[in-house]
């Protein structure tokens, strides 16, 4: 699991079925492949299973059948503890909002994944924690906020701190669930540019969920979930 052949795709789904309650599939995806380094814009109508798919990709949910392979690891063969460890090591996750632990200052929030997982710490190499934080914060333009309490940050700043936390220690896959929906239009593009730059810098694959179609052209690839999720099609017919 630790050895990641560079050639494996970032995400590979095949014959995926997922149901919260048995008999009612929420997701039914026959095949989806996302290569490394891609920036994927994932969209679809409400109820098309976007958030569920992200849960499966993050290893929080377990597929009912089929395979979810992230960086070549088949989640269906991993225990929930192993999936937790995998997530800590290889994934960065940005929520729509409320991404930060309110009682920790910016610096501590960014450092959380590093403190939680030794491998991610090791990936920093000889770089000190402070330097690593300063580096990623500088890329996302929040270098002067490191010691500020979370409550004093704007929503845009908070989302950038969340991105910094997702990116620190160079995880291979970044999953972002509508991270710009709470930002105004000007800020959205600015945030995305910073995010793209950082992903490129780290060589990370970005899977980005959004309703905002104006952002679509910025991505290297677009996936319409409603088209590939046969369960969503069926349920919309019901």
């Amino acid at each position: 699991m630790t050895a990641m052949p560079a050639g494996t795709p970032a995400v590979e789904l095949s014959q995926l079925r997922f149901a919260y309650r048995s008999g009612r599939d929420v997701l039914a995806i026959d095949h989806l492949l996302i290569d490394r380094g891609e920036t994927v814009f994932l969209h679809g109508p409400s109820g098309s299973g976007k958030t569920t798919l992200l849960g499966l990709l993050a290893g929080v949910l377990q597929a009912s059948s089929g395979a979810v392979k992230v960086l070549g690891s088949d989640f269906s063969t991993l225990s929930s503890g192993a999936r937790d460890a995998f997530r800590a090591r290889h994934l960065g996750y940005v929520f729509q909002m409320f991404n930060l632990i309110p009682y920790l200052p910016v610096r501590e929030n960014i450092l959380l994944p590093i403190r939680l997982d030794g491998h991610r710490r090791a990936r920093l190499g000889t770089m000190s924690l402070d330097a690593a934080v300063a580096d990623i914060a500088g890329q996302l333009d929040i270098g002067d906020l490191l010691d500020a309490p979370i409550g004093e940050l704007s929503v845009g700043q908070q989302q950038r701190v969340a991105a910094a936390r997702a990116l620190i220690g160079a995880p291979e896959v970044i999953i972002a669930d509508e991270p710009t929906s709470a930002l105004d239009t000007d800020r959205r593009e600015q945030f995305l540019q910073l995010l793209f730059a950082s992903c490129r810098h780290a060589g990370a694959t970005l899977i980005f969920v959004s309703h905002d179609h104006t952002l679509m052209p910025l991505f290297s690839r677009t996936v319409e979930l409603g088209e590939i999720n046969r369960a969503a099609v069926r349920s919309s017919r019901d």
Partner: protein
Amino acid sequence: MLIPRLALRSLRSRVLTTSLTVASIALSVTLLVGIEHVRAGVRESFAGTIRGVDLIVGARGGTLQVLLSTVFGIGSPNGAVKLETFERWKAHPAVKWAVPFALGDSHRGYRVVGTTEEFYTRYRFRQDGTITFVQGRAAASDSDVVIGSEVAERLKYTIGSPVVVVHGLRDIGTSSHEAHPFHVVGILGRTFTPIDRSIFVTLEGIEAMHEGEESPAVAKTPAKTAEKVATPDTKTKPDVPAAMPGASPPPGTPIVMPGASPPPGTPMVMPGASPPPGTPMVMPGASPPPGTPMVMPGAEPPTVATPTATARRTPSSTAARQAAAPAPAAEPARSVMFPMLETDFPLTSFLIGTKNRFEALMVQREMNTDLVEPLTAVIPGVALGELWQNIGSAEVGLRVVAIFAVAIGLTGMLVALYSSLEARRREMAIFRAIGAGPRTIVSLLVLESGLLSLLGCVIGVALVYAMLILGQQPIEQRFGLHLAIRPLGSTEWMYIGVVLAAGILIGFVPALKAYRTSLVDGLSPRA
């Protein structure tokens, strides 16, 4: 390192919720430990009423009656015990010391105890409390009075205050011994026992008080008169029970035993039976000398048989006067130990200290089977335990209150902990997204709830001791209840253990829930 730091930061960030939760836990712990302290205090102060005394001895009768009348001044004694009997037992080889008690009089509602100076040195209460004199000294002469602290306080008596003793326990009694005034010579320190509500005089004082009264005093006089008659026989034949005066009682002398409800087998004449002159004696259950006419008790049903002072007084003094009339010339014998008293001076009970604790049981058996004078010897600890069993419903009440307090306190505490943790599902979702496993999340939440419970317990216990330190004096003064400041007992530790365990366990619930709930739960802003 990460988890304790996170837990502390998280607790500190929510000062208000944290302190409210801690306060709720602290209050329930205070309640639990406080109730337990009060319960133990009540029990201890009860059990500590009399210490250092191996046996309490009274006339044959119920053990509780002996205990209640002697130690607590409640109810009336079983009957009288002759001074002679006391002296006989005091000389017993196993007996180290003996202190006589003569009860039956009162002063303004406080009981008067006739005793000796040895009482003040021998009596112990609570752990090893001795009787102390705040002012003055022990009663020595027949006009000396020593008063308990509550008596001194309520009646505002000081050294030299005159005291007039009345018969019985209430002032409505007709016979007040005004002819023999006492003066306070000593005031005792507080003991938190019935001693505080007692007045002590010498046996000689009791005797002097009752002397020269036209109507002989109650409780004691019947016995005295009866015994006076019997004395010559007991003197000459010490082996024969005093109440069974051999073959030749002075003709026409009835034997009257004091005490309204003697146990079966006790010689007696039923009060109210008023035996006609010439009836020699009544001895139910005993084998009378051949040819002695026999009157069965119940042949003439008694009109009054209740064990009250009045019941005793009227018939027995009538009988006494009848008894006294035919034999006025009988010369009473004088006691050796108390030259001013006659050997038949009526005590109500006496306290015994044995040389060896184990001998107490032996002496007790000897006394309970004594043929000369029927006695009941009581081991104070055993009798107090028995009594506590009977009146301990207050304790049961406190226990029930404590159990309810546990339930309420724990529920409140758990609700507070649970809601504070439940409010943090969002936070848990973030931790999960970062890759925190169940161990991290569970240990974070359990550590937090454990810390809150621990802090609550520490503050709660501190609060109990603070309240004890501040409240000890006022509670003593107000309720006469001494709450000892002592280390936590096993029950208290158990309560604290339960609170801590519950606090830790409740942390698992939201932790496991947070782990099981999908990320989705914390993802959307709606959650």
